[in-house]
């Protein structure tokens, strides 16, 4: 038996890098230090596996060989008038680079799944900037930690222990020396851990954030409550924020996905920015997939823009709402969707999935997903971070190495190897 140490978990944006994976005869038999989600991923890679490339013939998916699947993909990209390259939440940075090269070469569009998670965070950031930090700053210094519109206990299970209220740092040690606040529409399991839980109505975040900002700036509110929350409670929270030596705001899709979208984020940024005039305060988005942050980084350094990049004019253009995957599909503008590291048919609104019936689909995925079932070409790839190495970025932008601990099933290549074969023929 072989034990791999310091393995990065390819599940969520926490990118815990202290996993110990026990392997026997190329089979993962145990995973230590991981949460249930990470452990589940390592132990279930053999299930529902896509093992052979599939090509649609007369409406039926039939098995083929890699060579033919690559050939078919190259032909489809070459014949496409506007291909969209989409996904990347579960792909390595190396794979993302190759997809951007394809988009550049073919004059298509490249977009990543942040467009349906923290895209509004990026839009807010582009309007306002963002006062942020790496997670270790919070572990070492934060005496106040606020989770807003996120539920780490269920979505990022080790967050509170490694980086949050339960962590122990140089200047602040352990849960007792920190205050924890949760703001959400339901009393989630995370909320039950908090010192203060403030329940808000759905779609009221903008008002609450703005009211808090007013209070932080010593303004009086001429009302008794804001969208159902008593002003006294908001005052209490504002005081906690001002009096913290180092405060941290973690925010999730509760802010980005509900009414107001990027305006909610702008209100949160404005609040934290103003708090920095009184104390030290930082904020970090709770990124979902393990390398969605990396997708934003690679997109940005190669094209100047974090997502929604259109190459149809021969250079990178950016205008979310126009050059975003969901909008392009909704308007029926793309004729080929190339997907890697994502399962849009399970995650996008049904209306969009319906539109995909008129679009050619190429999917690279390790397992059989609803998107694979709809595909015109599906190519199996290794699980990156388990069967292939690469680079990923944690939610706070810390780059880390994805390690290979077992070989993929026979005949299955990494996504980078498959993409290299495609790109070589496109040039």
């Amino acid at each position, binding site marked *: 038996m072989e034990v791999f140490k310091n393995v990065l978990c390819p599940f969520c944006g926490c990118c815990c890098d202290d996993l110990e994976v026990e392997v026997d005869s190329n089979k993962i038999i145990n995973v230590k230090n991981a949460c249930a989600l990470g452990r589940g991923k390592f132990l279930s890679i053999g299930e529902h596996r896509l093992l052979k490339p599939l090509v649609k013939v007369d409406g039926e998916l039939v098995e083929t060989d890699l060579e033919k699947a690559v050939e078919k993909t190259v032909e489809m990209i070459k014949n496409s008038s506007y291909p969209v390259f989409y996904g990347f939440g579960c792909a390595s940075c190396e794979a993302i680079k190759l997809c951007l090269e394809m988009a550049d070469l073919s004059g298509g569009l490249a977009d990543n799944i942040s467009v349906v998670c923290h895209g509004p965070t990026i839009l807010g950031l582009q309007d306002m900037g963002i006062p942020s930090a790496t997670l270790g700053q919070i572990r070492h210094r934060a005496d106040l930690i606020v989770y807003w519109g996120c539920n780490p206990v269920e979505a990022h299970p080790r967050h509170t222990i490694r980086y949050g209220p339960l962590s122990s740092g140089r200047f602040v040690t352990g849960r007792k020396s920190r205050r924890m606040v949760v703001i959400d529409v339901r009393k989630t399991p995370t909320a039950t851990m908090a010192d203060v839980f403030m329940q808000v109505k759905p779609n009221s975040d903008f008002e609450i954030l703005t009211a808090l900002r007013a209070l932080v700036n010593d303004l009086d509110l001429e009302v008794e409550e804001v969208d159902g929350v008593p002003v006294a409670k908001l005052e209490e929270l504002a005081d906690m924020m001002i009096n913290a030596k180092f405060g941290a705001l973690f925010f999730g899709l509760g802010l980005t996905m509900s009414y107001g979208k990027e305006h909610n984020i702008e209100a949160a940024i404005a609040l934290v920015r103003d708090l920095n005039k009184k104390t030290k305060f930082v904020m970090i988005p709770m990124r979902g997939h393990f390398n969605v942050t990396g997708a934003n980084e690679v997109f940005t350094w190669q094209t100047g823009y974090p997502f929604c990049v259109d190459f149809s004019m021969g250079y990178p253009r950016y205008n979310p*709402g126009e050059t975003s995957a969901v909008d392009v599909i909704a308007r029926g503008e793309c004729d080929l969707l190339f997907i890697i590291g994502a399962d849009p048919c399970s995650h*996008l609104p049904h209306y969009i999935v319906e539109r995909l019936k008129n679009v050619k689909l190429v999917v690279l995925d390790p397992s059989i997903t609803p998107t694979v079932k709809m595909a015109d070409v599906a190519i199996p790839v290794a699980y990156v971070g388990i069967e292939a190495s690469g680079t990923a970025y944690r939610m706070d932008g810390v780059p880390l190495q994805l390690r290979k601990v077992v070989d993929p099933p026979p005949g299955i290549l990494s996504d980078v190897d498959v993409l290299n074969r495609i790109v070589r023929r496109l040039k």
Partner: protein
Amino acid sequence: MVNLVKMILVSGRSLEQGLGKEASKFSKRYIDVTAVCQLDPEDMSRLSIGEGESLRISSQHGSIIVKAVKSKHAPHPGVIFMAYGPWVNNLTSPETHGTGMPSFKGLEVEVEPVKTAERS
């Protein structure tokens, strides 16, 4: 009397959904967790619907029938919760308001119990 109530739908992640997703999106575990709707107990009595009974949820974009369960995270009257998955996608809005992001949370929906006869 038609028991049709306006509610706000929030979709999101849950631990079970995350585990089910990794097992497979065709697994019973994933279906069991994504084809249910969590309601506030008061709302359930208002709708006269019991645990495990069927519920129709309709939005501007579609309509689904899922199982109603009592929320463990109550009270949240007027707010229903579903895990991300193929069911809730039928309701979510493709409108991105110029941001690229569809509306997954805070969606206005209408909720009504489904009579046994209708279901079969």
